């Protein structure tokens, strides 16, 4: 995964709430190895018709969004199954940031581990961004992780919150498992305390 700093890219508006991870990547592909290009499976069943042709009425299929790196969606994006493959599919499909009013908790955690930035913005701001993007297909947004802002041509930059540790990991400076292995003494002390308490 590449370090995340700032992206200035086409943003695709997916004006739907409760986009679940079964839609993002159907269960049919969960046994595939990570070395596969999961972008091929991204939104597979909503993106294709029964004959396997790309549906003209699904927005990600529009040529103007072929190079989109930002996805703007409705509330509760990534709800449902814990499959990390949903994050892999978005990442391999070129998406580096998803902007939504809220996220499924497990998806949100999975995204931060894989270089995909989930950006929470107030519902009204997301609604405004969706409106702007739908009116101007191919419009760019700027997502700056260092400054923690989302910028667009017609409005002042919006600030977003992100967990400080996850931000450092995404910026490329930290690995979480290595960091936790550094807490070995605390973990062992906890295990000893717990063993004593239960033996009492």
């Amino acid at each position, binding site marked *: 995964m590449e370090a995340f700093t700032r992206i200035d890219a086409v943003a695709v508006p997916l*004006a*739907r*709430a*409760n986009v*679940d991870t*079964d*839609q993002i990547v*159907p*269960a*049919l592909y*969960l*046994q*595939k190895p*990570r070395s596969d290009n999961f972008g091929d499976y991204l939104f597979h*069943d*909503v993106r294709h018709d*029964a004959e396997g042709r790309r549906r003209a009425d699904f927005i990600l299929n529009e040529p103007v969004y072929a190079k989109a790196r930002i996805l703007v969606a*409705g*509330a*509760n994006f990534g*709800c*449902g*199954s*814990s*499959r*990390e493959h949903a*994050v892999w599919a978005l990442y391999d499909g070129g998406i580096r940031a998803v902007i939504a009013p*809220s*996220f*499924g*908790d*497990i998806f949100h*955690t*999975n995204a931060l*581990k*894989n270089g995909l930035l989930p950006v929470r913005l107030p519902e009204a701001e997301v609604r405004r961004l969706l409106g702007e993007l739908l009116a101007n297909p191919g419009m760019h947004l700027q997502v700056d992780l260092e400054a923690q802002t989302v910028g667009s041509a017609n409005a002042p930059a919006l600030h977003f919150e992100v*967990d*400080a*540790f996850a931000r450092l990991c995404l910026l490329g400076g930290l690995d*979480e*498992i290595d960091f*936790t*292995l550094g*807490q070995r003494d*605390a*973990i062992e002390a*906890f*295990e000893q305390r*717990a063993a004593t308490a*239960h033996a009492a």
Partner: protein
Amino acid sequence: MPTPDRDMPAPAPRTLFDKIWDAHVVTRREDGQSLLYVDRHLVQDGSAPGFEMLRQRGLPVRRPDLAFATPDHYVPTGSRRLADIADPEKRAMAEALEQDSAAAGIRFFGIDDPRQGIVHVVGPEQGLSLPGSVIVCGDSHTATHGALGALAFGIGASEVAHVLATQTLWRVRPGTLRVQIDGRLAEGVSAKDIILAVIARIGAAGGVGQVIEYAGEAIRALPMAGRMTVCNMSIEAGARAGMIAPDDVTFEWLAGRPEAPSGPAWDAAVARWRQLPSDDGASFDREVRLQAEDIAPMVTWGNSPEDALPISGRVPLPSDASTPERRESMQRTMSYMGLRPGQPLSELAIDRVFIGSCTNGRIEDMRSAAAVARGRRVAEGVEAWVVPGSGLVKQQAEAEGLDAIFLAAGFQWRHAGCSMCLGTNGDQVAPGQRCASTSNRNFVGRQGPGSRTHLMSPAMAAAAAVTGRLTDVRRLLSAPH
């Protein structure tokens, strides 16, 4: 015994969640995240990517003794042979779990072991899931184990690797939501109807960032199986976890299970567990109350579990939608589900029935479905399956003669696994088919591409099987056969 210090303020009342959380914090990070110790790591055959991440780093499994593995997602339910999994990649998932478990020294119940089954059925059944513990699994329905008074939640592959390597996880302390169900359920109304009614009330994102504690008379009155059904679908309300305070029902159910403490250790454990329920006056970030008498048998009509209505209801009208996005979403759903606005739900003819899953694959669920199926026949043109949640549930059902009831009625009686809940093993609903299902998700394509899922209780699914359409099971309970 220390004497209470008069100058010390009384400790603030704490919730069940607070007590478990506080007891598991190993350390805190500057950004406010806590490192939580994991007492039990449940592993299934979708966990291969987590083991692969560990291998790539050359790290050992820190506490294989705290992990437990059984294959459920990819196992065939028509036989007990992995060789019957036609797709080599799927077969490799089930095989990888056995190899990874053996290499790490993790206890493993394979497909040839009668104790194999859906990990969320097997964990509690074996006494591996205990009150007061932190339980994780690389599966979103891990909240099931919260029914025993545990803090249990699902994680992704990267965190599976993190737990394997460190036995811990970093977490921001979530908020708390108490869902109180007062009163008593009416005849024919079950735990599944409670949770569908809760999700319909608070929405699919109603619990995001929060842990739900289910409380109240109707929850206390539920047997363990029903409590597990309720907690299981917490994720469908967006919640991080769902939990129920342990009580005598819990302890009686757990006593004597193979991995539960025994002898003096059992008595000591029960004494500790009795301290777990939320203190009087403990505060929750949010409270929601429902009256049990107001809950009717529920079915879902749409592609989100929040699209749940009493069986007496009608498909909603997109013209009543509150926003244009909602209207468009409803129209898309109607088209996918093959529904007309305003259509009575009891008019919907079904093609398939699936009774099983980590939500409703326990012995009580089998009994409840069998009580409806007894002496009746599956309707012409309907294919109905019963898939027990574990090999032991299957054995118990057979000892009670439930298999004979189902088979005589024309149901298929299969082996344990996740099966048609998500179809990873090939047990799928065909495109355009309508399925009455006791599982947990009615998402687009969940039971197979183009599948149309209606979620309901085991008794309601059995009623749909024998009538061929969505049916109020209360009509069958009162009617002669």
